[in-house]
């Protein structure tokens, strides 16, 4: 089990780990679209 599988703690840690600082203002939109691809794609 890795550190990202819990929700919301692991999810929030992942967002912090993978999204560069300059993209953080739109992190919710970015994660929503990324999740859409991973969930539906």
């Amino acid at each position, binding site marked *: 089990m890795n550190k990202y599988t819990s929700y919301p703690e692991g999810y929030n840690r992942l967002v912090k780990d993978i999204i560069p600082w300059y993209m953080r203002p739109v992190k919710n939109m970015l994660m*929503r679209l*990324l999740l859409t*691809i991973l969930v539906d794609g």
Partner: protein
Amino acid sequence: MNSKEMKAARVKLFRDAANFRKTDRIPHFANVVTWKVFDAGHTLDEAMTNFDVMEKCVLHFLDKYPVDAILDVGIRNQFNVTEAFGEGGYYYYDKEVVGIHDHAHCTVETLQQYMDDPTRYAWEVILPKKYGESWAQKSKETWKKTFSEYTRYTKFVLHMAKVMDRYSLPGLSPNNPMKGAVVPAAEELMSNLLGIQQLSVAMRRSPDLLDAFIERWEKERMEPIYEKIRKAKGPDDVHCFDSSILMLAHTVMNKKQFERFYWPYLKKLLDVYAEKGMNIRIFTEGSILRFAEYFRDFPKGLLTFHLEQDDPFEFRAALPNVAIMGGMTTDLLSNGTPEECVAYAKRLCDELGRDGGFIFSENKMLSYRNDAKAENMLAVCEFVNNYKL
């Protein structure tokens, strides 16, 4: 005419046709997806995750075939993202075929749980189930690589939008390219949440649970969309349509089910668009003719049905208030001669488009190598582009 003026003229051509206004020629919306990869001399595995090859295929198509708009400029699939994440995606491809496995994120009993918090549900239920044991093994590096591919894909989408501008091609509608369209509850149930089998069974065995989900979807997902539409100024001037909706779920419903699970909500959506005088394209997969009676009272201009299997001449007789998109069959494009294809294209334009209300297109999304012969496609594209009514 410069590039911007040409694009504006094409938008006007589509809007005039949708509004049953006479035009000097019929617009051609190319319902072309991955067929262009084969036509450019490549196979799907060479283009799906290589954006340079995909762009080359798109440019090959746009340079060769004169069309007024195109469904896809190589951005429909995000295989580079899902492949970076690892095996387990619903979509698949090989050299010749791209497809999707039927899948279900929920059971009818967990639909409310999904609605309570879709992100939590994705994290705790969908993704662990979809990716199996590997879900818990995803490392920071894998996630970073996936995110990097995701940003690369996003940049490609933006780049191809500029390519479309260069070719003066308007987009189909102002929808999110990742999701495709405004999605009625019945369609989300069929395509993602329950899948074909579970939805079919649930309509008979658990209709009350479906009702509860659809009412909630309506309130939480659709009401904000209605508000957004009502606040809009009216039809936009940069896209062919104000919205594009896909209808597939009606194909597994009888009329009683359609009236309970689909029609009241679709009608509400269409009524809101009608209030604003907007133009809506509905891609009707399968046949829609057996539901024609429901669409008879809408004003001309609101609806354009992109027909997949229905005969366009029969459809015109049944619904003279609905514009038609389509008509050109992949059967003829793949098996006929250029002369036969052009003769049929001429009949479509003459009989369906003289008073507006017709947009030439292919009935199915051209995806496979044998969906059309190149010489037939070229012949009809040149004919429609040059034919004056």
